[in-house]
């Protein structure tokens, strides 16, 4: 067993350990520790990715002295490694991008608490990515939920509290159903480890025994996770949470947290239930329908929104709709499209949040749509970055959004019955996206009247004023371009990873 193979476990335990460590440090040191930890984990995960690419197969890592099914274990393939690398990257950039806001908006004595939350969030995400045990997954889902709630409400105003409590209620409903589903599965199969459960489920499915409970279990788990990841009807908490929490929280929440749950759902589909069984159960049609509705409704409410950050938040409702639509196809291609969209949406949405904050900085911290007039000239880089993000969101070629839209179209071609609704939904939501994103871009590039400028005294922001944020923005743009142009290997990697994922 090579030493590299320990890295997934190390990365989990390292971030887990960094949490309590931050509790005894002051804010500044906590920040340094946090950044260092994320960087180290990024390096380790890329090493793991390289390793899995070399071996081309996934391996099982035993947590403790007892093999499965007696002990815990984690399982690492290239899909997991890729996700880990990507999540670390995005989280690092978000943390770098949001430095200023954090220092401005968080009480100085509570800074370190924020970094505790981030560390534990990272560890729980990694655990969700790697774990091979359902109950462990449940425990870390809870960590994920609570620390996400902490991220929301660290900036203390009424909005965030309300958002946090709505978020908690929703996700508690979700995790209740998830836990119940896990109990059912345990009762039916007598195992908690995913692989063993799958064997048992296959036997049950063959014998036709316990068909009904199995169906209900799949339903419970899918609905539970759908609730937790803010699928359309359950998104009430989302706009406030993303719109009013501090910048890095908004970016991380929108790009990573919900994605962690979604990845868990993929894992459960493939590794626990078996995808063909899921396909035969009608549950994915429900997911499809809600995904499509979410695509449209999210965009519509985004058009109606006049607060730029809330607008971006609503657009991520639509994007999550895309992802679930991809699941709904119930095909390999659809799953790959969704996985790719997880990546591209994470890259783009965090870019958009950071850029939007840059723009609002240049317009007197007002997020109101009409006050952004001409902000693109006052903060050039942020303007460019926002334009890039917007173009990527509306599926402009060269950027990642275009690729995922193409992949969705390809997937739609495969599943005959869902073809028409899927394509029409794609087209409609693309047009809607164009409307509200282009509207914003046009607004931020509409020159402001001189007298208004004289009255409002906006400050002009250059790259020197916000070094960190600018660096993050540049990296984000680079990532978007990379995934837009060089997507072929990534998609291929996703395919291979998905093959050995089950």
């Amino acid at each position, binding site marked *: *067993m090579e030493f590299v193979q320990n890295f997934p*476990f190390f990365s989990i*335990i390292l971030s*887990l350990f960094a*949490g*309590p*460590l931050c*509790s*005894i440090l002051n804010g500044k040191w906590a920040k340094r520790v946090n950044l260092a930890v994320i960087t180290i984990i990024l390096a380790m995960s890329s090493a793991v990715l390289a390793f899995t690419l070399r071996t081309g197969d996934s391996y099982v*890592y*035993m*947590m*403790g*002295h*007892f093999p499965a099914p*007696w002990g*815990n274990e984690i399982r690492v393939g290239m899909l997991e490694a890729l996700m880990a690398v990507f999540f670390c990257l995005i989280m690092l950039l978000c943390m770098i991008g949001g430095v200023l806001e954090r220092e401005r908006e968080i*009480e100085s*004595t*509570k800074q370190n*608490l924020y970094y*505790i*939350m981030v560390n*534990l969030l990272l560890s*729980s995400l990694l655990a969700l990515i790697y774990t091979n045990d359902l*109950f462990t997954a449940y*425990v870390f889902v*809870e*960590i994920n939920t*609570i*620390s996400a709630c*902490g991220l929301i*409400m*660290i900036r*203390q105003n009424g909005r965030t509290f309300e958002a946090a409590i709505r978020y908690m209620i929703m996700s508690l409903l979700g995790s209740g159903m998830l836990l*119940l589903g896990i109990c*059912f599965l*345990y*009762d*039916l199969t*007598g*195992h908690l480890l995913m692989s063993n459960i799958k064997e*048992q489920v296959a036997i049950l499915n063959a014998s036709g025994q*316990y068909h*009904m*409970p199995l169906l*209900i279990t799949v*339903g419970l788990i899918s609905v539970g996770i759908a609730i937790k990841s803010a699928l359309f009807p359950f998104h009430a908490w989302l706009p406030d949470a993303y719109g009013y929490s501090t910048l890095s929280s908004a970016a991380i929440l929108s790009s990573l947290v919900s994605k962690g749950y979604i990845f868990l759902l993929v894992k459960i589909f493939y590794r626990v239930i078996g995808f063909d069984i899921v396909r035969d159960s009608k549950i994915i049609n429900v997911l499809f329908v809600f995904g499509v509705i979410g695509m449209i409704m999210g965009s519509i409410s985004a058009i109606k929104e006049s607060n730029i950050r809330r607008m971006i938040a609503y657009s991520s409702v639509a994007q999550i709709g895309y992802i679930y639509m991809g699941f709904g196809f119930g095909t390999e291609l659809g799953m790959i499209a969704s996985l790719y969209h997880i990546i591209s949406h994470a890259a783009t949405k965090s870019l958009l949040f950071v850029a939007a904050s840059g723009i609002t900085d240049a317009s007197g911290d007002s997020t109101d749509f*009409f*006050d952004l007039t001409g902000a693109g000239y006052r903060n050039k880089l942020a303007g460019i970055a926002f334009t890039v993000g917007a173009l990527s969101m509306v599926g402009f070629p060269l950027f990642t959004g275009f690729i995922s839209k193409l992949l969705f179209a390809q997937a739609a071609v495969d599943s005959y019955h869902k073809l028409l609704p899927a394509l029409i939904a794609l087209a409609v939501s693309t047009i809607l996206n164009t*409307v509200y994103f*282009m*509207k914003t871009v*046009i607004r931020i590039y*509409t020159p*402001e*009247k001189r*007298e*208004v400028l004289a*009255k409002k005294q906006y400050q002009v922001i250059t790259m020197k004023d916000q070094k960190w944020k600018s660096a993050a923005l540049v990296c984000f743009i680079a990532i978007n371009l990379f995934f837009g142009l060089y997507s072929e290997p990534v998609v291929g990697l996703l395919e291979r990873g998905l093959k050995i994922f089950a």
Partner: protein
Amino acid sequence: MSKKVSEEKYKKTLTYRLKQWLDGEDLFTGTVEMKPQEPYKVDQAVSEQRHEEKKRLLEQIYDIEHNPEMRIFNKIYRLFAFLFCIFLVLMLLTAVSNLPTVGSADRPVNNEVAKRYIENGLQETGAVNIVTGMILDYRAFDTLGESHVLFVATCTVLILLREDKKKKAEQNQNNDRLYEPKNDVILQTVAKILVPPIVIFGIYVILCGHLGPGGGFSGGAIIGAGLILYQNAFGFHKTERFFTAKTYKVLSFSALACYALSKCYSFYTGANHLESGIPLGTPGAILSSGLIFVLNICVGIVVAGTMYTFYVMFRKGGY
């Protein structure tokens, strides 16, 4: 000859609009704010007015008492939610009605996993209490996560309730009697008598976690209860002599760190098939079952601190 139409009337007509459109003036008035020709103005007054309008609108929309649509919407929403709950319960009952019978020994749950836990648990973990052995050795990863759940919850509570602002703290000092109990003789006497046994019992429960019912969580909870009782009786001044925020920080950090590191060690050795040199000792003795003993203590410390911290935060927002 068509009769002359006045300018503004003409401006209203469809033909004029069509002409505009054909001239390519702008199709998108109002939707994408493209008004190239007449200069666009946003001065203070306009924006003020806009905000005013928004406010009024919101006033109308969101005061639920006088907004029938809202009320009806709420009613419908609640109705649907209720129906959903009913549906859920029915589903679950259906599922349950198809589950294997409760209490029978031949259900899928009772498989080789439980068998090994029971039959070899004592030898493999050294814990007489099989459940403890299971959660702290076989499935220790869950428990690690679980104690961190507790920790992160404490941190959120600190975020929400800890008063760090100077003047707030002073206020608390001023109306401190609001937090301090009257010197209640009965309470204090009872506390004098009760607190030591409670704490000692808690310690006993923690230490014997691997021998009998109990363990870190229960024992820690008991100790926390003892601390809370003490605080109630004697007030913050006395507790602050031995238990402050700093104490809690250090304790919880060291406990969690110890927990994490030891588990890290055992996971690492286990995964790499190395022999962990930790002696299991003789089953039944206090100093037995290797790491489980240590872990119980760590968990106990964390839980006790957390319980007390919850209480203090809810009560006062600061130690």
